[in-house]
């Protein structure tokens, strides 16, 4: 259940950016979550709702922008969508797949009033 720590991280960032922009209310927080970020999204929503009580993010919606797990093969140069966490290149079989995306865990943008 590290979703509580992740929810805390999201709220800290959101409140910080909201304050810097003199926002009164946070309507929406968009997240970039990689396919391999290991976030259980139901648990995250639950933790976030519990944490935001009494803050300007209390009614904020969490928008989840899922990012596919994509690797670049340093051997044959092909980019590929990594399936079943198999990091052997489906094209040439090498173990030289470099992760291009799919590990993200970021706050992308806020919508505020």
């Amino acid at each position: 259940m590290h979703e509580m720590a992740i929810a805390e991280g999201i709220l800290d960032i959101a409140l910080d950016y909201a304050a810097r922009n003199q926002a009164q209310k946070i309507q929406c927080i968009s997240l970039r979550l990689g396919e391999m970020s290991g976030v259980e999204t139901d648990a995250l929503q639950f933790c976030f709702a519990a944490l935001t009580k009494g803050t300007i993010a209390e009614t904020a919606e969490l928008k989840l922008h899922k990012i596919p797990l994509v690797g670049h093969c340093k051997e044959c140069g092909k980019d590929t969508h990594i399936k079943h966490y198999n990091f052997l290149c489906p094209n040439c079989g090498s173990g030289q797949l470099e992760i291009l995306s799919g590990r993200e865990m970021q706050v992308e943008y806020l919508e505020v009033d």
Partner: protein
Amino acid sequence: MEIQVMEDILGKNDRLAAENQMLFAKQGIFVLNLMGSPGSGKTSLLEKTMAALKDDLRMAVIEGDLFTSKDADRIAKYGVPVIQINTSGGCHLDAAMVQKVLKELDLENLDLLIVENVGNLVCPAEFNVGEDAKAVVLSITEGDDKPLKYPLIFKESAIAVLNKVDLLPYTNFDMNAAKKDITSIHPGISVLEVACCHDTGLALWYDWLKGKVAAKKMAVNAHEHA
């Protein structure tokens, strides 16, 4: 109004981890983040390691545990400095928790620091504490399906220690399938088969650790003379 952010949610932890890492690098200490399920044998592996290497390396251990000091008590018997962090229910150690206790260690006289994380195959893999490498202990009684169920911890670990191989005849654990899954998740990962209780396969583990410690010392010396 829309506000662009693009910040890493765990950025604060990553910044503190980088601070820890700089401190360890300055002293040439190799730091290992030891992870695995409850009961996989992390502390048993540490006990064997302390007994085998205490004359060769200056070691210390940070023990993460929800509530007790049971593991720290086991390590203290070997005369190695050990610090207990109780997470009070928290499922993983983070960089701030480790940073807070570092002043209790004599970092100037240390070669190897092992941080035993809270028993868990999920969360510890997401939170760097400033380590040079992560290791995962998987006991074969947990089942050969675990690497694909918890891929991140195997992806993040430099070495996977498959413990309790003495019990293989009594389980349906398929060693070849497990190794194939682990190395497809992380091509290049070291995989060791050990049985801590019977001292089986541990020499390779000690060699791996000693090699890492020596490499860290060399990197620091090279940097100082550059």
